[in-house]
């Protein structure tokens, strides 16, 4: 028993030694706290942007996120970041009420804060220097108008992150721009679950001719698969927020209509660059930076596919 335990401890210590960076270099350190789980393909692109900016700017970066969409846990992660007194802090703000105290604490501690992805409406009020992201209502409206133009009348809005206000806003913008009847379908972020639920929704209401998914890898691809299962490919137009390699292939083959690219790589990359330059030279852009939307239709799809598979778009 004893040797078994010693072995375990030794194994743990070895793992630690193997993964720990060779030397924790001192100097500029920028911490990024988001609500995006590491296994979500969308957020892995953001994380790649963060890492690349860290390399390009030669600063230390740390990407942190709670394991589930948990605002209480996220505020605690921000507190933890503030305690380490970084040269800059990047946060996403999906729930301003729950996160404001922690963000204001960071500002009070004299840490420059940039918000990204969600929270453009409250960013300035909480003391962030600027926001890098996409206006969700406007992007939803543009997508809705485009889908209406393509002939859509009855729509389905597939929400895989119930509880996130930004996603509610996307559905709201879609409803406004689309003009027709829109039903919101809440799902989990499990592809099998989404596929089954979308299939059921299509069977329940045969008049549905348009689906807007709120995430490509999470909700978009299973929605395309569900439409295929129902034998309605082409008859039901599927569009999605964000992009994934699989969904882009579906656009290229005509199974899906388009993807709304908010270019989230920039949301990870730019704030780190801004904060690194701020630490070095005191530079900071004068206003919010819109990272999207950019509608990726059949013509643009192929050129984006390669980069999407690499986790850059």
């Amino acid at each position: 028993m004893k040797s078994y335990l010693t072995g375990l401890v030794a194994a743990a210590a070895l793992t630690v030694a193997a993964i720990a960076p060779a030397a924790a270099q001192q100097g500029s350190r920028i911490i990024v706290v988001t609500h995006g789980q590491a296994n979500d393909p969308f957020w892995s692109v953001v994380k790649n942007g963060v890492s690349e900016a860290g390399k390009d700017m030669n600063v230390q970066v740390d990407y942190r996120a709670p394991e589930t969409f948990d605002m209480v846990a996220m505020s605690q992660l921000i507190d933890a970041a503030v305690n380490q007194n970084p040269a800059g802090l990047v946060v996403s703000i999906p729930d301003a009420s729950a996160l404001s105290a922690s963000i204001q604490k960071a500002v009070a501690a004299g840490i420059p804060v940039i918000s990204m992805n969600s929270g453009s409406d409250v960013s300035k009020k909480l003391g962030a220097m600027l926001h890098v992201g996409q206006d969700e209502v406007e992007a939803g409206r543009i997508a809705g108008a485009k889908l209406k133009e393509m002939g859509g009348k009855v729509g389905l809005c597939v929400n895989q992150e119930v509880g996130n206000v930004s996603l509610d806003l996307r559905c709201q913008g879609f409803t406004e721009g689309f003009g027709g009847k829109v039903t919101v379908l809440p799902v989990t972020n499990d592809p099998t679950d989404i596929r089954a639920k979308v299939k059921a929704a299509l069977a329940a209401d045969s008049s549905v001719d348009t689906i807007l998914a709120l995430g490509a890898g999470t909700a978009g691809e299973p929605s395309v698969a569900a439409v295929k299962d129902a034998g309605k490919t082409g008859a039901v137009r599927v569009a999605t927020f964000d992009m994934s390699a699989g969904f882009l292939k579906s656009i290229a083959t005509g199974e899906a209509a388009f993807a709304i690219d908010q270019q989230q790589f920039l949301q990870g990359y730019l704030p780190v660059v801004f904060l690194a330059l701020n630490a070095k030279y005191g530079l900071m852009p004068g206003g919010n930076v819109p990272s999207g939307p950019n509608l990726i239709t059949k013509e643009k799809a192929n050129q984006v596919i390669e980069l999407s598979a690499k986790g850059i778009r």
Partner: protein
Amino acid sequence: MVHTTQPATDLSPAPAARKIQDERLKEVSLLTKIMRRPELGALAGLILVTIFFLSTADPSMFTLAGVMNILSPAAQLGILAIAAALLMIGGEFDLSIGSMVAFTGLVFGAFLTLTGWPLLLAIAGTFVVAAILGGLNGQIVIRTRLPSFIVTLAFLFILRGLSLVGLKWATGGSTQMRGIDAQGESEIVRELFSGSALEGLFAWLAANDLIAKFPNGTPTVTGVPVSILWFIGFALVATWILLRTRAGNWIFASGGDANAARNSGVPVDRVKTGLFMLTACAAALVAILTVLDAGSTDARRGFQKEFEAIIAAVIGGCLLTGGYGSAIGAFFGAIIFGMVSIGLTYTRFDSDWFQVFLGAMLLLAVLFNNFIRRKVTGER
């Protein structure tokens, strides 16, 4: 057990020396007594985890602000874990507590914003709703004799779903209820359930340079969050009940052998129903604390907290089969969990490894705990 019949000739009163030979009456040293407590392993696990972070994490993790930062998630989880531990000692599970946090959070938010009830009434109303749901859980388990695992799993989904339905109904379509504000409410009630305690003391300490300050002069820690005080208080009360009261004996008896307990006159059904109501009310307390703290609630609150609470209780020495465990063990278990989940952000490890680490650290803590317990109890 083997009963040896006494020879008929030996009816004379037993000499004093005989009594001591009965192993149940054997005097054990204080040290052995301490070593036999179920929570010892959890304490040892906590020390192990602390050593790990002392050697790998940024030193700011163990500053005052860092420790408060670790204790906040530990407190929220711990309130649930202590209640879950009592229920597990009583021989049942409650998988619905995570969903109960979301649902009672919604109920509380609705009472405050929709009906405009004063804070005290809203809090009382939320506890009543939670107690009714907990009682319902318990009654279904007792009357149908189905495993509590299944019954409460059903409620895990029902309550999570009801939270979503209720939120959309209450907010007119959003999955998040914002702007829940208790300002202007009764001072004492608000102080009890939100913000920080001992703010004056911390301001004084900061003014005298005894604790760290931000550049603008406010202390890095403005007080002890009330959730931490609830956590400590609940752990003490639960331990006292378990070890010093009749109700505590009933809980151990109900979980150890329900039939034997019933035959000795323990109201097993009442004990179990009460425990289900307790876990539901603990979930309601966490919901009230977090909703007042965050000013909002959403459909994902308390997600997977039921598993974390059971893990913390098991780290704290509870047996999955019931009849054995401790509240103070769950207290340490929750702190281990909080330390691991927040502590990793103070290290330089890539966050992709987070869950691997969390799982490995917990496994290590439980194995170590188990090892220590076997060593000291001589269990095979």
